[in-house]
């Protein structure tokens, strides 16, 4: 089984100057995860936990004062299912797709070997992967798609990506000419701010198509319509400027741009921020639809409701570290999160206990030596303040919540919770608030 993206030990440090002293900000520390083709991983956490920095690191979009270590291997060619989905649109995207299947990706890939294991795959074209794609493509990758929590997170899991491209060590030229838009599409946080204000959507789409694909001038008009259609952007709004678009339409325009290059991996950075609930639902459904056509989605969000709707798996970040990485169904449903922070985060939802987590996240330039959540954690013991828990079996905690729910203490499911307890100030968490006094 080969992941599409394999991130290992990704760390990002910023050097900043505050009050005339130089400080190192640990924005992301030791992040490791795999993304299977056709999978959606939601990276959730409070604002400032480092999740957007992680996304920027994957695209090489960090400012100059950042230092990145670790690696992020991206499969050298898009899975076959993706290609077919695109050509079915009638756009002549094949010309632009001879991209990075070039050096070194052929011989050491397990082509065909895994194909028999591809049962239960969400990739529609698993059966014919061998047919037109040739030996240089990663095929038979579907096995991991539906398996969610079974994905290995150990350091060796990236072995299948030896021919892959390391996004973190790639230079700007490689990122600009091969990665951005072609292998990784970015759906930005603020579409209105991402679009060029002085040009129409049609002109921006045309430019992107011209740059990313080999579409001839004669076919450009049709390709623009097809690209707009793919993101459900209405054709009669193509000649408007960004400021004339509603938030939802601007979001679709930005999505259309991200889809143009046929990138197998989509990276959505808070795509639902500032949208109202109906629009969030629709945006999420549309993103999910793109995952259904064989694309892989890494969605970064603090909107837990949106994450619940879209994700196959969830990674919870706290103070720059992934503290829980698990199957979305068990995270949002039963038995629920295992990390105390993740449990409190879900408890803060208005559809659940609506109980704030006491205290605030630590400053990323002054992280404690032990677990960063220990000062806010009701279950913390002395070991938590001295020993840093590492991610094991999907959770980084010395006292993970047992997966067996105790009567009366398990968190109710969203669907089981139509009415609310009388007092939102009363935390309905299973943990007594014994640490509150320390932080008030």
């Amino acid at each position, binding site marked *: 089984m080969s992941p599409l993206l394999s991130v290992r030990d990704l760390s990002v440090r910023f050097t900043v100057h*505050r009050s005339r002293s130089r400080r190192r900000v640990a924005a992301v520390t030791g992040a490791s995860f795999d993304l299977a083709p056709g999978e959606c991983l939601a990276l959730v*956490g*409070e*604002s*400032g936990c480092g999740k957007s920095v992680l996304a920027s690191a994957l695209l090489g979009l960090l400012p100059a004062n950042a230092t990145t270590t670790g690696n992020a291997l991206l499969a050298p060619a898009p899975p076959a299912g993706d290609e077919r989905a695109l050509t079915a649109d009638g756009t002549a995207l094949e010309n632009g797709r001879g991209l990075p299947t070039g050096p070194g990706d052929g011989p050491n890939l397990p082509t065909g070997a895994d194909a028999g294991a591809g049962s239960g795959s969400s990739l529609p074209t698993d059966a014919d992967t061998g047919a037109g794609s040739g030996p240089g493509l990663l095929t038979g990758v579907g096995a991991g798609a539906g398996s969610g929590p079974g994905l290995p997170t150990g350091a060796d899991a990236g072995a299948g990506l030896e021919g892959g491209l390391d996004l973190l060590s790639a230079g700007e030229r490689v990122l600009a000419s091969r990665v951005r838009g072609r292998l990784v599409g970015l759906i930005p946080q603020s579409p209105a701010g991402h679009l060029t204000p002085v040009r129409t959507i049609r002109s921006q789409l045309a430019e992107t198509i011209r740059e990313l694909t080999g579409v001839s001038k004669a076919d450009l008009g049709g390709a623009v319509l097809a690209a707009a259609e793919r993101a459900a952007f209405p054709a009669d*709004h193509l000649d*408007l400027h960004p*400021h*004339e678009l*509603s*938030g*939802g*339409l601007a979001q679709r325009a930005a999505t259309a741009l991200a889809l143009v290059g046929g990138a197998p991996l989509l990276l959505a950075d808070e795509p639902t*921020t*500032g*949208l*109202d*609930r*109906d*629009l969030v639902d629709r945006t999420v459904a549309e993103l999910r639809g793109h995952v259904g056509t064989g694309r892989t989605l890494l969605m970064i969000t*603090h909107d*837990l*409701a949106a994450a619940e709707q879209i994700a196959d798996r969830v990674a919870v970040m706290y103070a720059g570290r992934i503290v829980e990485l698990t199957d979305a169904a068990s995270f949002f449903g039963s038995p629920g999160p295992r990390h105390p922070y993740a449990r*409190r*985060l*879900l408890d*803060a*939802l*208005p*559809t659940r206990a*609506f*109980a*704030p*987590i006491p*205290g*605030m996240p630590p400053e990323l330039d002054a992280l404690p030596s032990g677990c960063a959540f220990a000062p806010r954690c009701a279950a913390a013991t002395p070991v938590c303040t001295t020993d840093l828990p590492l991610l094991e079996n999907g959770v980084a905690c010395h006292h993970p919540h047992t997966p067996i729910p105790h009567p009366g203490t398990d968190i109710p499911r969203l669907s089981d919770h139509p009415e*609310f307890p*009388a*007092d*939102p*100030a009363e935390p309905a968490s299973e943990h007594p608030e014994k640490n509150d006094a320390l932080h*008030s």
Partner: protein
Amino acid sequence: MPSTPEASGSAVQREKGPAPALELRSITAGYPGRPPVVRDVSLTVPAGESVALLGPSGCGKSTLARVAALLHRPDAGSVSLHGAPVTGWRYRAPRAQRTSIGFVFQQPRTAADPRLTLADLIAEPLRATRAVPRRDRAAADEHVRPLAASVGLTGDLLTRRPHEVSDGQLQRACLARALVLRPSLLICDEMTAMLDASTTATLVNAVESYRAETGAALLAIGHDRPLLTRWCARLVDYPALPVPASAGPRPPSLRETAHHH
């Protein structure tokens, strides 16, 4: 969760008794050269109660909130606060009326002076109304410290400027600023739309503690039905407005309209 209408504490309420904290009658409002954004809308917030106004982005609810907060003069209709009719908007409103309303905006970045530390940001209304002398830091601190603690801002954070804190931390300061003059009506316009679940719960708890203590009324505006259902005693759905078919430039607040749904 909601305090009773009888809960008293603010001077205005004692004088006016049961008069509603806010009464909007047949408000029509908009921006020059464009069709009105708000048409003939009425809304009442009883004293001490919490009312949520729900509507999609761009339906005009923020404009209505600005009218209610005396920040935007309506084209037609009337507003009264605790029974007293409003005769002027913005700086033409009497100070007592202006300062009886606390307003929290959706975007803390654009609502905060980047030059002020968070402590000065919270204390600014006190200084602007000369409730404390501008140079008397200790007097301002007396008001600011407990309030900042109640929204979870402590120590070092208060000495920072907006660019040195997160959106969530800045919004905490903006809430404290809205409460520093002890308003009898608090208007929260999408206060938590940009924030994560935990910060949202913290801010809502801070608002509710303040209301429990003072008996202030609340108008919460937003589009998050689960949140507002949980937060407020009464929910009002903003009436859907007909949208003119012709496109063309729209007011900046009008972002999402019915015909795109």
